[in-house]
């Protein structure tokens, strides 16, 4: 800011002088606008299309597990393999010990099963599954609270993975390390199903609808330690 009063005349005089010597003609003005547009379009394309592809790494699961097939063979649905322990903790992805019950030797003629028995069962190595729904360490997620107390079904958060015949590619954010299923496929936060994204706001959305007890002084929602540890 400056002393504009006595500046106006002298400066506009100068500017007039400047513009007379430096006036862009019509074509160069067009180029300027064109350049702006090119920059705009290129960066928009980069930001919306290229960047997301660069951001996520795509990993194949070690074994292409067929959920649909297994779901037909077990008696207790998802909980046959993904069960709650007596203390209320959740077993997560089955350990080799569970699989061995059936897969001591190759059962069928699937090459994936053969690979599983060969590379993991025989060698006694746990399968390094990539967990689509894995939450970061700061989260305390209680399956017992959701499944036992609130009687929610698996699909609400995990989608229809139980019906799948193949495991999809595991997309992982190279920077944050999150699975894309947690971050949501849509970059602008668009979601169609309840399971499309599992970030804090998505949990809170449902939690607020449930009219759970609101203890937080700061947010008048549930206390932080309900979901964090």
């Amino acid at each position: 800011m400056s002393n504009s009063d006595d500046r106006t005349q002298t400066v506009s005089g100068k500017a007039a002088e400047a513009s007379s010597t430096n006036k862009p003609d019509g074509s160069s003005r067009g180029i300027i606008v064109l350049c702006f547009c090119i920059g705009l379009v290129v960066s928009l394309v980069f930001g919306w299309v290229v960047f997301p592809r660069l951001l996520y790494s795509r990993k194949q699961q070690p074994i292409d597990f067929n959920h649909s097939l297994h779901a037909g063979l077990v008696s207790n649905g998802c909980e046959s393999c993904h069960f709650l322990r007596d203390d209320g903790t959740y077993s997560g992805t089955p350990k080799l010990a569970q699989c061995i019950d059936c897969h001591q030797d190759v059962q069928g003629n699937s090459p994936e099963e053969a690979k599983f028995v060969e590379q993991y069962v025989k060698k006694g190595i746990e399968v390094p599954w990539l967990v689509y729904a894995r939450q970061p360490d700061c989260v305390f997620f209680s399956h017992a609270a959701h499944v036992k107390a609130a009687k929610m079904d698996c699909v609400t958060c995990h989608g229809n993975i139980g019906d799948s015949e193949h495991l999809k590619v595991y997309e992982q954010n190279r920077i944050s390390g999150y699975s894309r299923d947690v971050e949501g496929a849509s970059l602008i936060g668009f979601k169609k199903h309840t399971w499309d994204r599992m970030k804090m706001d998505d949990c809170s959305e449902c939690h607020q609808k449930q009219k759970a007890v609101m203890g937080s002084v700061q947010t008048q929602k549930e206390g932080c330690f309900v979901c964090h540890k």
Partner: protein
Amino acid sequence: MDSAFIPNGVRRCAPGKFLVVLAVAGAVLLWGVYAMLLCWFKGLNQTNMNNNYGFALWIWADLAVIALGGGAFFTGFLRYIIGKDELKNIVNYAVLIGFICYSSALLILAIDIGQPLRGWFIFWHANVHSMLTEVAFCLSCYFGVLTIEYIPLILENRGIDRVPFLHHLGHNMHDIMAVFAATGAFLSFFHQGSLGGVAGVLFGRPFSFREGFFIWPWTFFLFTWSAAAYGPCFTLLITRITEAVTGKKLVKDNVVELLAKISGWMMATYIIAKIVDTLYWANVTAPSKGFTLMDFYSHNAFYGVWILILEIVIGGIIPAAILITDKGRKSPAARTTAFVLAVIGVCVNRWVMVLQVMAAPVMTFDKWALYYPSWQEVATTILPVAYGVILIAISYRYLPIFPQEPELNPID
């Protein structure tokens, strides 16, 4: 060499000399940057802060530079809202100094926090009850205002002014500068206050806790008031130093005296309020928590009553007395002394409200904790000084900061 960019009607030193100044300041700056990078990459273990001193030198530096940068908002407020027209001759420099102070404050905050990459949480996940949230929002907004106020000045550079778009931009911004300045003043009143609130709301710390009005502790108002009172003194002091360094008279005495007089009266009223506040705190607030005044000024190796005297008498009553009397104000030596004392006074006040708060024990079995900053803390605190010198040198060289300079220093 760079004469095309030097404002008309003024004389500047040779480019070589200018570059030497930049190089020296640049070296100091690099030292600070090195320390800053250490803090960012290795963490705050590079400092001597500890669990008793969560706030230390940096937060003091923040509070101090913002109080000193208060000259910008208050001069702007006087110039645009109150209509003290003469101040147009110093408001540019006040804005520049404010810009330096505020950008430094933001930088120091970015170093001070343990997780700089999460710094934006303060905005996104804001807790509106926290004084620090208020500080962060108003500080960044007011920094925006200062940038807006500083831009037209940059655009006045002869080289830049040739571009029509930029020329018009500067012109347009000038036209509505009063709106920006008013917004800035509004924001400033709040963040200066909330900085005071930072310490004042700590009801767990009887040394800093103050009762107050509505949600604001008395320190809220005292801080705004003191920034308005002491900030212009800093502007005037830096102006005086610039004059000494350049060997030129840059601002006319009547302008300086006007601002000094306002500052003096602000200071006088502030110091009365401060004394009342201190008396009330010492006789009512602290005793109600089981403390006597001397509990805060004894049983330790450093903090004694002297600091109270330094802040209130030497850094408050004396400069105020000099500046409100005609004689004192008109004498350049007395005036400058008053500026120096005032700057010391406000810095001591901010020191006390940050570091002594941390030092004084609250639990009966706790001990006084004194602290010495590490070199990394010192370097990063000096960094803004070097940065300020560089920015002032460049701005002075290329921008018409002092409108009265050509008149006061005619070129033959």
